[in-house]
């Protein structure tokens, strides 16, 4: 009996260890695959072609700049919507709302997070886009703004959920200390609770924005997919084509091993590097704030 238990333990520890390492392995394998399929782009086509402003792959125009700016403008728009709204909701749920309100709000937000993005895209296409067209008097409602609003909606539950947990984890003694010093509720939230939970909130924002930049189905349905270089703020009100939508729309029909195929994987590589960049930047900020907090506490 004892022996078999040990044998079980041995297997289970190894399994847990392996699943821990597997994340690293998977990321490495994905990156390896992307590089292997994406790097031949530089053999097939020139850098000047990649940096041109025309994306029309069936006639050998492979300028990825419009796609890059399209993704950026939609993501920035989504961030502008989701960050204030998400953090506000998290603060309200965690700090202000009475208990019964909290019990209702939290599951509702989580339900919102579970909505399939294609459903949101469908609603956006049939309801939000026509509304924005008439409300803002635009030529068409299929714009970067529509995508931003919906992506914001997709990112909000992630941000709320993580940020609320972080705010909740701030020890009650912090708040009581602030109140004892005569701080108002707002001062306590803004000067004490919020800074104490900063790293958790930042993680939430990062995860939310990460979801927004990688989101495909919704943006493909509502942004119009016109590969126009977005150079100014006004581009928010015109159609754009994002990197994810391009891959999704074109990968199905592309001949394996063709230039177009390699360029699509190259776009995937760029996406991967962007999310890696966002992650590294965010964790370095989290790391720095932690050190500062430790210094203050010591």
């Amino acid at each position, binding site marked *: 009996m004892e022996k078999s238990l040990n044998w079980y333990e041995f297997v289970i520890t190894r399994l847990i260890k392996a699943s821990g390492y597997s994340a690293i392995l998977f990321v490495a394998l994905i990156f390896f695959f992307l590089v292997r399929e994406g790097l031949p782009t530089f053999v097939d086509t020139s850098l000047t072609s990649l940096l041109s402003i025309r994306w029309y792959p069936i006639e050998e*125009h492979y300028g990825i700049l419009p796609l890059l700016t399209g993704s950026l403008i939609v993501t920035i728009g989504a961030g502008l919507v989701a960050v204030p709204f998400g953090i506000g909701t998290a603060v309200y749920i965690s700090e202000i709302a009475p208990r019964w309100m909290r019990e209702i709000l939290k599951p509702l937000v989580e339900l919102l997070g579970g909505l399939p993005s294609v459903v949101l895209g469908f609603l956006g296409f049939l309801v939000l886009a026509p509304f924005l067209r008439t409300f803002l008097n635009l030529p068409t409602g299929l714009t970067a703004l529509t995508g931003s609003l919906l992506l914001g909606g997709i990112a909000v539950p992630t941000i709320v959920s993580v940020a609320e947990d972080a705010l909740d984890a701030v020890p009650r003694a912090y708040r009581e200390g602030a109140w004892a010093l005569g701080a108002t509720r707002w001062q306590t939230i803004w000067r004490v609770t919020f800074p104490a939970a900063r790293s958790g909130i930042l993680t939430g924002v990062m995860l939310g924005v990460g979801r927004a930049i990688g989101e495909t189905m919704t943006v493909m349905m509502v942004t119009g*997919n*016109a590969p126009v270089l977005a150079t100014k703020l006004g581009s928010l009100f015109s159609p754009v084509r994002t990197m994810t939508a391009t891959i999704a729309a074109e990968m199905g029909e592309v001949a394996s091993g063709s230039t177009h195929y390699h360029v699509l994987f190259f776009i995937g590589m760029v996406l991967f590097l962007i999310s890696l960049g966002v992650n590294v930047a965010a964790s370095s900020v989290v790391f720095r704030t932690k050190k500062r907090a430790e210094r203050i506490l010591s």
Partner: protein
Amino acid sequence: MNRLIILIVLSIILLAACSSNTTETNSTAAAYIENKGSDTIVNLALAWAEKYQSDHPEVRISVTGGGSGTGIASLVNGTVDIANASRQIKNEEIKNAKSNGVEPVEHIIARDAIAVIVNPENSVSQLTLKQISDIYSGKISNWSEVGGEDRPIVRLSRETNSGTHVYFLETVLRLGNSEDKTLFSMDTLLLPSSEGIIAEIRQNPNAIGYDGLGYVPKDLKMIAIAAEEGGAYVLPSIATVNDKSYAIARDLYMYTDGEPTGIVKEYLTWILAPEAQEIVAELGFVPAALTPSPSP
């Protein structure tokens, strides 16, 4: 442990079910038709093949796309029984075929017409082919330039991987001139589906789009098109497509090596029969109804 056993048993049953299925169809298939070519036709050919196989379980039909050129090349090399093409066979392809001892025979199996559609609120109801070309290439960006209200034009198109997109580019934007390198205006909205185009036009009076004639719902307005300036404006319909007066239409072909015989002949005869031509209409093409069926 019990669960594991159940899982294993289940998967064995599933595997057995799968393999028994495939062997069954393999063993009963007596005749085999290889069908390859145009990506425009591939869905239609697949639908036909599926229907035909379910009615005639002894026949197996394999359908692949790859493009009209690929299909005809395979016919010339003798690797397929039927080649699908959305264009007529070229003279050099006939020459190649003859030197290979292959005699390509043409069968018109359906017609493909593209309707240009706008919102019913739009006062424009007729355009010349050249005007549509200028609209899509970006030379015309306001409806007032073609006799409509002062509204911006929102151009809608299918994604670049759609056969309809390429056909529209070649026939309308470039007016059939293969030297022409005109492209779609950069701000053309590329929508992933026909439904997307229809839904956007339904609610947006600025929009113009195109789609297979069979897909256009009744509540949208089709544009009457004149092939040349001063020519007659013709609305797309099954009649105008079949009498060739509508400009954006083409025949869809199947080619066989010599007059078809045996099982291939039966299949092609079935394709031109009303039952199969109904599927043509369902998939948004125009039935080749007025074509006299090939002499028996």
